[in-house]
C-alpha cells in the first residue's frame, strides 16, 4: 500500500501543473499562486489537414519512460524490425485474431509539427495496416492500429536526462489491445523503456473542464457534459450533467480574474457553482461523487486515461497538459 508515496505523488502531480514557478518538491503550492498560461491557446498557424487524422478518435493514454538509443534516422529499420516481430508473434500463435490471416504492414513516421518548443522531440507515429491476402493485390490497405509518441513542452524531463535517451513521455493508442501489447513489448525490449496506463484523477478532470470551457470556439459548440459515478451503491449509478456551452462559458468568465491564468480557487468556485445548481434541483451532492468523464467542444477526457480531440487548433494545448501528466506519472 502506497499511502505516503500516494500522497507525495498527488502533491507532485498537482505541483507540476504549475511548473514555471520556483518551488521545491517538498512543498505544495498555496492556492493563490498564479499559474503560467496553461489553458490551451488557439494555434492559428497549425495546419488542420495534417492533424485531421488525429481528431474524433478515441485515444488511450500511456506514459513512457525515456527511450534508450532511439534515432529519428532509423525509422524505416524500426518499421522493418517491428513487422518481423509481429510476424514472429503470429507464428508463435500468440497473436492476434483467430482464423483471420492478415498481412500486416508497419509504417513508422515522424510528425515534426506536433511539438511545443524546439527542444521537444518530434512525434513518432506507428501505423499498422492490413490487407487480406484473399483480396486483389492493388486493393486499399486498411488501417487497423495506430499509436503515436509525443512530447509537447516536456522541457523539465528532457533537460534532466542523459545523452542517449530520447524523451517521448506520452503515448496514444487507437486500435485493438492485442496489437498494443505486441508493439509495446517490442518497444520495451528494443529501447528499454516501460509503458504505464495514464489515469486522470477527478481533480485534473475538473481542471480540464474549467480550462476547456473557457476556450473560444468558432462554430457552435456542443454542450459541456460531466459524468459522475456514484460510489457505495449496490448497483452502479452514473449521473450525466450537461450544461449549455454559452452558460458555462459565461459562468467561467465571471469566475476567472486574469485571462490566460488559472488558479485552483477559480476552478473550485466554478465547480462549486455547478454542484450547488445541481443540488438545488435534485438534492444530490455531486461533490460526494466521483467525476469520471468531461466532454467539451475542445476535447473529451475519461478518468481511465482515454482522450478524444475535437478541435485541431487546440490540439497542441491539450497535448501539453497530457504530456505534463505523463511526466508526473513517470517521476
Amino acid at each position, binding site marked *: 500500500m502506497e499511502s505516503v508515496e500516494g500522497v507525495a505523488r498527488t502533491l507532485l502531480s498537482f505541483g507540476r501543473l504549475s511548473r514555471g514557478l520556483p518551488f521545491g518538491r517538498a512543498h505544495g503550492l498555496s*492556492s493563490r499562486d498564479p499559474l503560467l498560461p496553461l489553458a490551451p491557446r488557439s494555434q492559428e498557424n497549425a495546419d488542420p489537414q495534417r492533424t485531421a487524422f488525429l481528431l474524433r478518435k478515441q485515444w488511450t493514454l500511456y506514459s513512457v519512460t525515456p527511450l534508450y538509443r532511439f534515432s529519428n534516422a532509423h525509422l524505416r529499420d524500426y518499421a522493418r524490425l517491428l513487422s518481423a516481430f509481429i510476424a514472429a508473434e503470429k507464428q508463435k500463435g500468440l497473436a492476434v485474431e483467430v482464423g483471420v490471416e492478415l498481412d500486416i504492414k508497419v509504417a513508422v513516421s515522424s510528425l515534426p509539427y506536433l511539438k511545443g518548443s524546439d527542444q521537444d522531440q518530434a512525434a513518432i507515429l506507428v501505423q499498422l495496416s492490413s490487407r487480406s491476402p484473399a483480396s486483389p493485390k492493388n486493393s486499399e490497405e486498411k488501417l487497423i492500429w495506430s499509436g503515436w509518441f509525443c512530447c509537447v513542452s516536456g522541457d523539465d524531463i528532457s533537460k534532466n536526462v542523459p545523452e542517449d535517451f530520447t524523451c517521448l513521455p506520452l503515448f496514444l493508442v487507437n486500435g485493438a489491445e492485442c496489437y498494443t501489447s505486441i508493439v509495446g513489448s517490442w518497444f520495451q525490449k528494443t529501447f528499454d523503456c516501460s509503458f504505464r496506463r495514464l489515469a486522470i484523477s477527478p481533480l485534473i478532470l475538473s481542471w480540464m473542464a474549467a480550462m476547456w470551457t473557457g476556450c473560444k470556439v468558432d462554430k457552435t459548440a456542443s454542450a459541456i457534459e460531466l459524468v459522475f459515478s456514484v460510489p457505495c451503491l449496490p448497483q452502479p449509478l452514473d449521473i450525466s450533467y450537461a450544461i449549455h456551452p454559452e452558460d458555462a462559458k459565461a459562468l467561467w468568465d465571471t469566475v476567472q480574474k486574469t485571462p490566460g491564468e488559472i488558479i485552483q480557487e477559480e476552478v473550485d468556485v466554478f465547480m462549486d457553482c455547478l454542484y450547488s445548481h445541481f443540488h438545488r434541483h435534485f438534492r444530490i451532492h455531486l461533490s460526494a461523487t466521483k467525476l469520471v468523464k468531461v466532454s467539451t467542444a475542445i476535447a473529451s477526457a475519461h478518468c481511465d486515461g482515454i482522450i478524444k480531440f475535437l478541435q485541431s487548433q487546440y490540439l497542441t494545448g491539450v497535448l501539453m497538459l497530457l504530456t505534463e501528466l505523463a511526466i508526473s506519472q513517470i517521476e
Partner: protein
Amino acid sequence: MASWMFVLSNSKLITQFSVQILQPLLSCVVPWLDGCWYCSWVTTQRHGNLGSYYRASHLATSLPLPPERDHLRPRIDLVAFMIDIKSKYSLKNVEASLAYVDDSFFLGKVCFLVTGVGRVNCCSVEMNAIQNLGEVYCSPVLFCELEVEGSQVATAQRLLRMLEICAGHVPGVSALSFSSLMRNCADD
C-alpha cells in the same frame, strides 16, 4: 463516502482491548447520502485494582451536535475530523463543522484524519487545501487508508495514543505538545 466526524472521549485509563474495539468502529462506512447519523456507545472494562474503566466514542456526520443529549455527553478529550480524499463534500462538511468547535480544543485536541490516500487516481480533494487546514487550525493531519485492514489498526493505535495524551494519562506530555511539534515541522 460522506464525511463523518469521529469524536473521542475518554475519562479513565485505556487498556489494550481498546484497539480491538476501536478497529471495527473505524471500519464501518457511512452511506454517502446526506443525513444526520448520531451514534454513541459506552463500554465498561473489567474491574481491576484501579477501579472500573470507561471509554466512549461518539460519531456524528456534522456539527453542531444535537442539543437534546447535552446532559448525557461526557467530557470530550479529542475531536477527530475525517476527510475522504475521494469526496470534496467531506472536506466542505468538515470546514463547515469546524466553526462549531470551541477554541480551547485547538490547543492540540483536534486532529484531521485523511483517508483514501492509497488511491492517487481517485482524488478529488487537493492536497494543499488539507495542508492549509492543518496549518490554519494548528492541528496534526494524519493520513491513512481505512479500507485496508493494516492501516485501520495502525491508525486506531495512533489515535488512541493521542487520546491518552489528550486525556492527561501520559505523565510529562500534554496535548499542547502537538501544536508545538507542528510548528517546528513547518519551520523546517
